[in-house]
């Protein structure tokens, strides 16, 4: 299977952007964006679908960390002796 060329890449990125916009508008409710999801999976190689899905999860996580803050992990507990 040969790598996507420039046009195919752009089509895939376009479909991804549409899907992400839909998810943003629907608070990540996957069921309301099924059409875009199908379009996205059709335009992009399977590996890219996985890659971009992971990327979105990461971006959401990063956003959450930056806006809501986080609890720093506890250091090693002191040994009881």
């Amino acid at each position, binding site marked *: *299977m*040969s*790598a996507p*060329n*420039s046009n195919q*890449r752009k089509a*895939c*990125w376009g479909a991804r952007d549409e899907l992400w916009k839909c998810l943003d508008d629907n608070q990540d409710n996957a069921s309301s964006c099924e059409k875009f999801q199908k379009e996205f999976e059709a335009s*992009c*190689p*399977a*590996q*890219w679908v*996985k*890659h*971009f899905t992971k990327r979105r999860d990461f971006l959401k996580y990063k956003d959450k960390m930056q806006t809501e803050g986080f609890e720093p992990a506890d250091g090693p507990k002191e040994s009881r002796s």
Partner: protein
Amino acid sequence: MFSVGSMLCLERRMLGLVGFIGGDLHATFGRLLRCPVRSSAVQKTSGSTHHPQRVWLSSQVPLCGHHTPKHRTGLYGPFTLGSSRGLLSLPLFTQRVTLSQGPNTSTAKIRLRTRLVVTLLFGGGLLGTWWYVRNEKRQNHRMQRIEQLKKVALGQGDFSLLDHRGHRRTKRDFLGSWVLLYFGFTHCPDICPEELDKVSAVVSSLDKDRSLPAVQPLFVTVDPERDNVAALERYVKDFHPRLIGLTGTPEEVKVAGKDYRVYASPGPKDEDGDYIVDHTILIYLVNPDGLFLDYYNRMKDDVQIAESVRNHMKSYVKL
């Protein structure tokens, strides 16, 4: 009436002042102390005009038509005239000014002109020195960085790869030109196309400047299993026309990657055998002597990279 002698004394004191500012205390005190007799003599003869008051040198302005902002503040700013004890310190100028407000306006004009010239020269000298020192510092910084990168000594080895037309190319073939090198793979979802677009933009922008030598963009694959000559040929034509794609056997590619300490790790294969290669994302700049000079990560945009390459080209010294 002021004798030539007292005028010389004034100039000497001026130089002393200049010396003071220049941090040369020896000159300052030497000059300031050299003519106490004269000044006291002057003071005696014109006691009537000597009274404590604020003097603006710019009051001289209507007389001689000069108007330099420098004279408003700083060195020759308003100083209150002290008693005769203040003779050896800064207010001396202004004292002279009040004293010369009398009939001798021509000597005052001359003195003012001289002062102006001296100030401007001094100011110019200061500016020039500052500018020179600043440039030297920048040059030092650049040289230091190059030394550091030389120590890191990336890209010292030789590579032997096939270009996207099937011709064998070694590192030697690219000596004599500036090279922007990027490691990636054709099945890359988004990063490699973005970085190659960036490299293409940099090369195009540098091409516009005819005075600069042409930059050679290179794309070396980290995925030799899939990226053969045909695959590379299909890939590179979407970017800058001068972009050369390079591939080879896994061994050859490994040698090239190792030379630049490129990390590359193919991920798990999925059902149709597709996989993503995790790899370091850097654009390397190599000079015409084959020396690695600089690198650019994802944070740098094409304008910044072009600027950096331009600077390297300007400060390039042939080995």
